[in-house]
């Protein structure tokens, strides 16, 4: 992926976002079986197969330039999408260092980082950015370190401070969230911001996940996939802008579902940061229309079966209920009922 042809496309208004055949093939389809159950499904975030979305710590793909432009549009509309409490400055520098070092190492044709002790120079060729600054001195950067690099990496980012036996969401850069609000969650503790997840508390899942994350070690990052659905390829499905995207849910029909309805998969990865002892929670969003998904018949069949018997609480939580029937009707044309082997692979 070193010579990416960046697509010029939009994630709003005329929605010109599309996936190339190569992007479809590497899409992180999350369902290995016909039935879905909420689980924590955490694994080590070690480098995966070449060309896959987990080849590198942070995935840069054909949507990079357009997605970064969309971030700027969202930030310009709503400054509250970036927030960092004052005690998170060390974590901000940790984030800048991790992302700059990772991108420069993994995509040397696109990004370069040169260091002369604390004097660093960063070059981002796709976005035509070049800045020299003193590491640790925020006044030498045009923006705060977290804001500066948050605009140059695809995905959303939360920095969690670990104290008092829990984790606090004390900084965030959130422009492509699946219907949750940074302004609402900033400063909240683990159990507070997971309050709304259905059927989870009674399973003790959140307690176990918290314990696991609190002992997350530097040098051993982890990842998991999560999923939901979005109507139209829209990154910014925030509660603040619900009037702009919410009503789209009512426009889905069995005829247009293939084009309008998208499976939205989040690659969530978690890193322990060195200086701050904070945790970086990175949420990278991948969107694929049902039509694109059906390029691979086993994906369409499996998604049909997963959606068909999804628990009503999860349909409600993921906001799928209103267009559930229309999506099932579209997908059912692609499901002959034949048995499919376990696994998430496309063909």
């Amino acid at each position: 992926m070193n010579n990416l042809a960046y697509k010029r496309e939009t994630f709003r208004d005329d929605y010109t976002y599309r996936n190339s055949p190569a992007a479809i093939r590497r899409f992180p389809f999350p369902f290995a079986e016909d039935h879905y159950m909420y689980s924590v499904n955490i694994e080590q975030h070690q480098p995966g197969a070449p060309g896959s979305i987990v080849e590198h710590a942070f995935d840069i793909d054909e949507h990079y330039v357009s997605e970064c432009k969309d971030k700027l549009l969202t930030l310009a509309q709503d400054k509250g999408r970036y927030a960092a409490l004052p005690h998170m400055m060390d974590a901000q520098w940790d984030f800048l260092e991790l992302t700059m070092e990772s991108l420069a190492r993994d995509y040397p044709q696109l990004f370069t980082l040169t260091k002369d002790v604390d004097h660093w120079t960063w070059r981002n060729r796709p976005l035509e950015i070049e800045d020299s600054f003193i590491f640790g001195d925020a006044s030498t950067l045009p923006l705060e370190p977290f804001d500066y690099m948050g605009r140059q990496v695809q995905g959303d980012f939360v920095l969690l401070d670990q104290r008092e036996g829990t984790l606090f969401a004390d900084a965030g850069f959130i422009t492509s969230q699946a219907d949750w609000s940074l302004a609402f969650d900033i400063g909240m503790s683990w159990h507070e911001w997971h309050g709304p997840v259905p059927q989870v508390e009674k399973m003790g899942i959140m307690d176990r996940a918290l314990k696991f994350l609190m002992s997350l070690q530097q040098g051993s990052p982890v990842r998991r996939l999560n999923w939901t659905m979005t109507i139209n390829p829209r990154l910014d499905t925030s509660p603040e802008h619900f009037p702009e995207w919410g009503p789209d849910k009512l426009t889905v029909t069995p005829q247009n579902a293939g084009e309008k309805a998208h499976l939205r998969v989040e690659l969530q990865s978690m890193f322990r940061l060195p200086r701050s002892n904070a945790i970086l929670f990175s949420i990278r969003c991948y969107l694929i229309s049902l039509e694109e998904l059906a390029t691979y018949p086993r994906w369409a069949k499996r998604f049909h079966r997963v959606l068909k018997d999804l628990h009503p609480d999860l349909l409600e939580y993921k906001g799928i209920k209103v267009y559930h029937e229309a999506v099932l009707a579209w997908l059912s044309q692609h499901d002959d009922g034949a048995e499919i082997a376990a696994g998430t692979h496309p063909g």
Partner: protein
Amino acid sequence: MSALKVIVSAIEQVADGICHFTFAAADGGELPGFSGGSHVVVSMPAHNRTYRNAYSLLSSPADRRNYQIAVRLQEQSRGGSRFMHEQVKVGSRLDISWPVNLFPISRVGHKHILVAGGIGITPFMSQVHELLRTGADFELHYAFRSPQYAGFIDQLQQLLGKNLICHDQSQRQVLDLQALLSQQPLGTHVYVCGPAGMVDALLSTAYELGWPDAHVHHEEFLAPPIGEPFTLRLKQSGKSVEVGAEVSMLEAMEAAGVDAPYLCRGGACGRCELEVLATDGVIEHHDHYLSDAEKGSGKKIMPCVSRAKCSFIELNL
């Protein structure tokens, strides 16, 4: 768990029975950054077994050229501290874990009182660098038996000046915890590391004075205590492991090739928790992690420091 490969680049005696080791990355590069209060677990390959002990990092977190640890020769060493003192030389190669921090400075505190007793000074060595860098309001109280036991005293005096308050017991300078803790401004955090008696005294004084739990921090790594031998049955793997009198359950499992999780190996972090399915005796809980209710239930155990007085104990592993 991935290990860091290091070479011992210097060894120095810093106080009676305390050796100071400097590690450099074996590949000649930089070591990972860390936060004040972090420790590493050092693996010590003795001829018949591997010891693993946690030691605080002493150097400035900003300096990634090397790590420093201090090891006190334990009078009743199970082998680890003796190995470090007698077997490890300049040029020795060791595996250490990535840094882990179970004793961080609170980033929301307004003032920080650090209280060290003897070798308990070690986690504060990196913390004071961090506090100085961020310009935080703090003071370090250092209690020791006599000046020959006061490791790092010159270095600390130079770094901290009047922010270092020494309590030399040989000069009858007693640390008055009641006085110290009863007149601090709102938003102050207190941190203690030292002998068990000192930690307990500080925790109970803070509690009696109404300090919020979240503002009182302590670090106390335990060595696994000696007990009686027993048999460990592992339900999932069907393995049976003999636990000798002088090894911990965790060490016995590792020696038997069982991949059991761990982080601090000192009963503090909770990572190694295992589920107890059955035993014909009594669990001897030694950790600081489980609540009294959890200990009472008999369903959980921290195999790094706890053991059982029994003929067998069955775990869900």
